[in-house]
């Protein structure tokens, strides 16, 4: 049973560029959340996708957008990259429904983005 997978593992971009990160949720999970983790900090919630729609959003600008596909996989897009966007981007999945209220999140290994 594959867990949450993310690609790529590492990425280097320059300021102003655009980047797309990908995530496949754990088998049986249909919700995907994205987090940004700066060096030395805890993860910060970006947004959550369920039924191919953005359901919740954290305090991130519109430069951060996402998408969820019918197979529940998801993409995170960041436009007009800034140096401050350098971070580890984590994807987490959980099953929807009342059971567990999506409390426990299963995290992928992350994509480390460096913006130069």
């Amino acid at each position: 049973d594959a867990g949450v997978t993310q690609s790529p593992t590492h990425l280097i971009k320059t300021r102003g560029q655009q980047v797309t990160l990908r995530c496949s949720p754990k088998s049986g999970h249909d919700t995907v959340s994205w987090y940004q983790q700066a060096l030395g900090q805890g993860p910060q919630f970006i947004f959550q996708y369920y039924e191919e729609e953005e359901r919740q959003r954290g305090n991130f600008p519109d430069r951060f957008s996402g998408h969820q596909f019918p197979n529940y996989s998801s993409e995170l897009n960041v436009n007009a990259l800034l140096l401050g966007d350098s971070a580890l981007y984590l994807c987490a999945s959980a099953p929807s429904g009342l059971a567990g209220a999506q409390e426990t999140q299963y995290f992928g290994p992350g994509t480390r983005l460096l913006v130069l």
Partner: protein
Amino acid sequence: SQQGEEDPQALSIQEGENATMNCSYKTSINNLQWYRQNSGRGLVHLILIRSNEREKHSGRLRVTLDTSKKSSSLLITASRAADTASYFCATGGWGKLQFGAGTQVVVTP
């Protein structure tokens, strides 16, 4: 802003010793979770304690929750080198978790 704050920021112990870290949070909660992160990679869920529980055990882990003080503690007993990691407390649900800055634990052989 972060909901939880862990204390201490860093902890260095020897194998076999116990490691204790604390978490304080700001608003009322339904549950509190602890996660572990090795070498800046993905987080692994360790344990969840609900607001109506005071203590919970899982293997060498013991978590306490004091809702009156808005605080929780994580105790790792008989630590091993493999316990070297960052530990985070998290609150929230429905896919939106709020994490503290974490406690970095180093266990030396």
